C-alpha cells in the first residue's frame, strides 16, 4: 500500500474519527477531511487535514501534519489560516504518531473549544512583520517608571544598535527606544544602563496608547489602517499630520508609530507601524460646516515592524541569580582569568551594579583563558571588561575604580593614620566585594579592615587543581593555611611568560571556568538560602568536582 492509503486507513481506525474522506495526493502532501465525534461535542466537528510526505518526521522546523478549520479562528491557539496549534511529540512510527497527533487535537477541542479556556499567560499577537524599503526594522523597549493612560500620545526618541545584521536573510536595522515624551513635555526614560542611555538619538517616532491589543480575536493583528479608526483619538491624528508637516523635508524616511496596550495587570506591549514621511495614512478634509475632519486612509495596509520587550524581567526570565545577589552593589578587585569570569557570569545572571578594579594591561596571551577579546587589542583590562559587560546586558552599571586605589591600600595600610578608615568607608559603599587578585598583601590588608560589606576571596591553585573560597572575616589565615599547608600547591612548575617577573598558574579556560562556575553556583545558593557562609574548597580532579566545607 502507498502513503495515501496507509494514512487514510490509519486515520479511519482512530476511534473518535467518524469519517475520513476526500483524501488525495499532491506533489508534497496528501490532503483530505476528517469528521470527529467526541462525547462532549454536541455535534461532530470537521477539519481539513494536510499530511506532508516527510511525516512522521518534521518538515524543516514545523509540524508535518496540519488540522485546519476557518470556522474556529476565534478560539485560542488557532492561526490566521485556521490551523490549530497542537502539541506533537517525536515518533518515527506512522501509526503511533498519527494516534498521538489526533489525541492532541482532541485535547485542544476539549480544552479550548468545549471548555472555552483562556490561558493565564499573555500570548503575543500574531504579526506579519513586513519588509519596508527592502529591509526589516526592529525596536526594543524596556521598563519605565510611569504608566500610560488610554488615549495618551506623544513623541518617542530612538537610538540605533550596531548597524550589522540580517534577519531571515534580509537586512535589518536594530534600535532601542530611549524615551517617551508626553504632550506636556514630560519625558519618560527607558531604564537602560548609562552606557545605552548615552547612545546618540538619531531617530524619532511617536506613540499612542490604546489599552487593548490592536487585533482581531485578541490575536490576529489588524491589517488595514481603517481597523484602527475607532482606537485612535482625533487629537492624535491631528498631531500626526502636524508631525508630518514638521519633518516633510525628510520625505520618504521611515517613521515608526508605537501602539501600546496592556498585556496583563502590570505589563504593556508596543507594536510598531512603519509610516513613511509624506505618505501618512491620515487625511484631513473640511466638512460643509467648515470644521476639519480627520480620517484614516481606508484601503491602506499597515506595515508592521518588529518590536521586542527587553524589560529586565523578560531579559532574565529564563534564569538568573538570586535577588539577594542581583540587587547588590558589587565590586570585583582583580579581573584576570578568575575575576573576568566572575564579572561576566554575574552580568549574565542579572546583576545590576558591578564595579571593577585592576591596574593590569590586557596582553594577547591573556585572552585564551579569560573573557577578553582579540579585537580590542592591548589596553586596560578594566576598560575593556566594562564594555564587554555592557554589550551583554543593557541593565548592568559598571564603573572602573581608580586603578591605583588598591595598590594604595597596601602601601598606605601600615603607614598612614586614617587611611584604614578611608578604605573601610569606600568599601562599605558596596554590599559585596570579590577579591580575585591572588595578592596576599591585599588579602591581608582587606582582612584586617572593619568591614560592613561582605567580602569573598577566590583563588585557584596551580593547574586549577583546587579553588579556595573564603568569606570575611576568616580569609587571610584560612587561605594562607590552605595554600601553604593543606593543599598540594605545586609552584615549582609555574608558567613564566617573559622572564621571572610574572609567573602565573597553569590552567586552561575550561579548567578555570569549571571551578569558577561551581563556586559561583554555591555562593548563589548560600545567598539565596541565607545559610551560614562557610569557607569552602572545590577539588577538581578530572571532571569530578568535590566541595569541602570548612
Amino acid at each position, binding site marked *: 500500500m502507498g502513503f495515501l492509503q496507509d494514512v487514510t486507513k490509519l486515520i479511519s481506525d482512530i476511534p473518535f474519527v467518524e469519517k475520513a474522506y476526500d483524501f488525495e495526493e499532491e506533489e508534497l502532501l496528501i490532503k483530505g477531511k476528517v469528521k470527529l465525534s467526541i462525547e462532549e461535542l454536541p455535534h461532530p466537528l470537521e477539519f481539513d487535514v494536510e499530511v506532508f510526505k516527510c511525516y512522521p518526521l518534521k518538515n524543516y522546523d514545523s509540524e508535518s501534519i496540519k488540522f485546519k478549520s476557518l470556522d474556529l479562528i476565534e478560539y485560542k491557539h488557532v492561526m490566521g489560516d485556521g490551523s490549530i496549534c497542537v502539541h506533537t511529540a517525536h515518533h518515527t512510527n506512522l501509526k503511533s504518531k498519527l494516534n498521538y497527533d489526533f489525541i492532541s487535537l482532541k485535547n485542544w477541542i476539549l480544552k479550548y473549544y468545549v471548555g472555552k479556556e483562556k490561558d493565564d499567560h499573555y500570548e503575543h499577537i500574531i504579526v506579519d512583520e513586513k519588509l519596508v524599503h527592502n529591509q526589516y526594522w526592529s525596536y526594543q523597549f524596556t521598563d519605565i517608571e510611569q504608566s500610560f493612560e488610554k488615549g495618551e500620545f506623544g513623541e518617542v526618541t530612538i537610538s540605533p544598535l550596531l548597524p550589522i545584521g540580517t534577519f531571515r536573510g534580509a537586512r535589518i536595522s536594530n534600535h532601542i527606544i530611549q524615551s517617551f515624551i508626553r504632550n506636556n513635555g514630560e519625558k519618560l526614560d527607558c531604564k537602560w544602563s548609562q552606557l545605552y542611555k548615552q547612545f546618540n538619538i538619531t531617530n524619532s517616532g511617536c506613540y499612542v496608547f490604546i489599552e487593548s491589543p490592536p487585533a482581531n480575536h485578541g490575536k490576529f493583528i489588524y491589517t488595514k489602517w481603517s481597523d484602527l479608526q475607532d482606537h485612535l483619538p482625533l487629537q492624535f491624528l491631528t498631531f500626526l499630520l502636524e508631525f508630518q508637516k514638521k519633518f516633510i523635508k525628510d520625505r520618504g524616511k521611515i517613521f515608526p508609530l508605537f501602539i501600546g496596550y496592556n498585556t496583563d495587570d502590570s505589563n504593556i506591549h508596543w507594536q510598531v507601524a512603519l509610516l513613511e514621511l509624506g505618505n501618512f495614512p491620515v487625511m484631513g478634509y473640511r466638512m460643509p460646516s467648515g470644521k476639519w475632519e480627520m480620517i484614516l486612509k481606508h484601503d491602506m495596509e499597515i506595515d508592521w515592524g518588529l518590536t521586542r520587550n527587553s524589560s529586565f524581567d523578560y531579559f532574565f526570565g529564563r534564569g538568573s541569580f538570586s535577588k539577594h545577589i542581583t540587587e547588590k552593589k558589587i565590586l570585583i578587585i582583580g579581573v584576570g582569568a578568575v575575576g573576568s569570569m566572575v564579572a561576566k557570569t554575574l552580568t549574565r545572571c542579572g546583576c545590576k551594579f558591578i564595579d571593577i578594579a585592576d591596574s593590569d594591561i590586557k596582553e594577547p596571551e591573556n585572552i585564551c583563558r579569560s573573557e577578553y577579546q582579540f579585537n580590542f587589542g592591548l589596553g586596560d583590562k578594566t576598560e575593556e571588561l566594562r564594555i564587554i559587560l555592557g554589550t551583554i546586558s543593557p541593565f548592568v552599571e559598571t564603573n572602573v575604580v581608580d586603578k591605583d586605589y588598591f595598590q594604595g591600600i597596601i602601601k598606605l595600610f601600615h603607614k598612614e*593614620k586614617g587611611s584604614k578608615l578611608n578604605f573601610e568607608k569606600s568599601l562599605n559603599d558596596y554590599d559585596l566585594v570579590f577579591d580575585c587578585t591572588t595578592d596576599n598583601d591585599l588579602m591581608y590588608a582587606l582582612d584586617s579592615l572593619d568591614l560592613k560589606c561582605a567580602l569573598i576571596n577566590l583563588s585557584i591553585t596551580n593547574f586549577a587543581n583546587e579553588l579556595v573560597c573564603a568569606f570575611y*572575616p*576568616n580569609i587571610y*589565615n*584560612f587561605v594562607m*593555611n*590552605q595554600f601553604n*599547608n*593543606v593543599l598540594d600547591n605545586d609552584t615549582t612548575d609555574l608558567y613564566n611568560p617573559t622572564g621571572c617577573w610574572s609567573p602565573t598558574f597553569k590552567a586552561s579556560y575550561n579548567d578555570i571556568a569549571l571551578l569558577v562556575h561551581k563556586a559561583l553556583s554555591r555562593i548563589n545558593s548560600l545567598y539565596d538560602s541565607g545559610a*551560614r557562609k*562557610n*569557607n569552602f574548597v572545590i577539588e577538581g580532579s578530572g571532571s569530578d568536582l568535590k566541595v*569541602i*566545607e*570548612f
Partner: protein
Amino acid sequence: MATNKQEYLQTVLETHRMSHVEDLVNKFKSKRDEVKDALTSHYGSQIYSPFDSGSFKKHTAINTKFDLDVVVPVKRDSFDTLDKMFDSFYDFLSDEFGENATVRKQTVSIGIIFEEDSDGDVISLDIVPGRELSQDQYSNDKKLNLFVSSDYGIFSSSTYIQTNIQAQIDHIKAKDNERKIIRLLKIWNNNDGKEFKSFLLELITIKAFDTEDISGNLWEKLQQVMTYIKDNVTNDSFKLIDPGNSNNDLMDTLTSWGRTNLSSRMGTMLDRIESNSDNIKGYFPTNSDFEEEDKSSSSGYGVKTGAAAFSTPPDNQRFG
C-alpha cells in the same frame, strides 16, 4: 606536612599571651587606676571600692582583642533609681575624661575610649555601675542590680538586671585547664566571625569539664570540649546558668538556628582537622606578631614552632 596539634595549640596560646603586650597592658592598668581614683574621690562613701572584672581578671584574655572592665558597687541609698545612678556616672565620666576620650552609654556599662596615643595605641575601659539591692546587703552576698540602657532592645521590658559579678569571677577561679580551652575557643571565635559571646563559650567550657571526664593533652581536651558542645547545644533542655543570676540562662541568647549553627561549626571543624591536621591552623591562628619570639627570643638554639622532631636539609645546595 602533618601538624603536631598538641604542640601547635601550645604555640597558639603562647603567641596570644598577654605578656607579649605588657607595655600596652600597663597603659590599660594605669588608665584604669586613674579612672578608679577619680570615681573614688568623687563618690566617696556613696560607693564600695571598685574592682576589676572581665577577661583580664578571669585570666581568659587574649592579646588580639581585649578591654578592661571595672565594676563599681554603689550603696543602695546613694541614688533613688538605677537610671539616675547610670546618668550620674555617665555625666561624671564625660566631664572628667570627655576632653580626650569618647565616653558613651553601652548596654550595662559606660565605655571610655581614649584617643590614640603617640604609639598609636587606643585604650578602652568599660565602667559597670551596679547598686546593691538593699542598704548594706552588698557586703554579705555581693549581689548588684545593673541598669540596662533602654537604647538596647533585648531587655526592653525590664530596665535592670540582677547579677553577681563576684560569683562570675569565682566560678572560673583556679581552673587553669578550662582557661586554656576558653582562650582557644575565643581565638577561634574571633577569627570565625565573632558569632558567639565569650561568656557563653566560658560557661559551656566549664560545664563540659564539670560533666565529662575531660583529660589528655591540650588538643585532646579541646577535642573533647568541642565534641561536648557539638553533641549538647542543640538539645532543648541544655542550659547554661549564669553563676551571677540563676534566672539567667545564656542559651536563651541563641536562637534555635544559632544552636544548630554552633553545633555544626564544631562538627565541621572536628571533621576537617581529623581529615588533615594542618586544617587546625585555619581555625586557630597564631598571633603572627609574636610568632618569632617563640623559643628563640635572643638566646639558645631556635626550633620552629609546632614542628616535627628531625630535619631533612633541602636538596642541591651550593657552597663556594
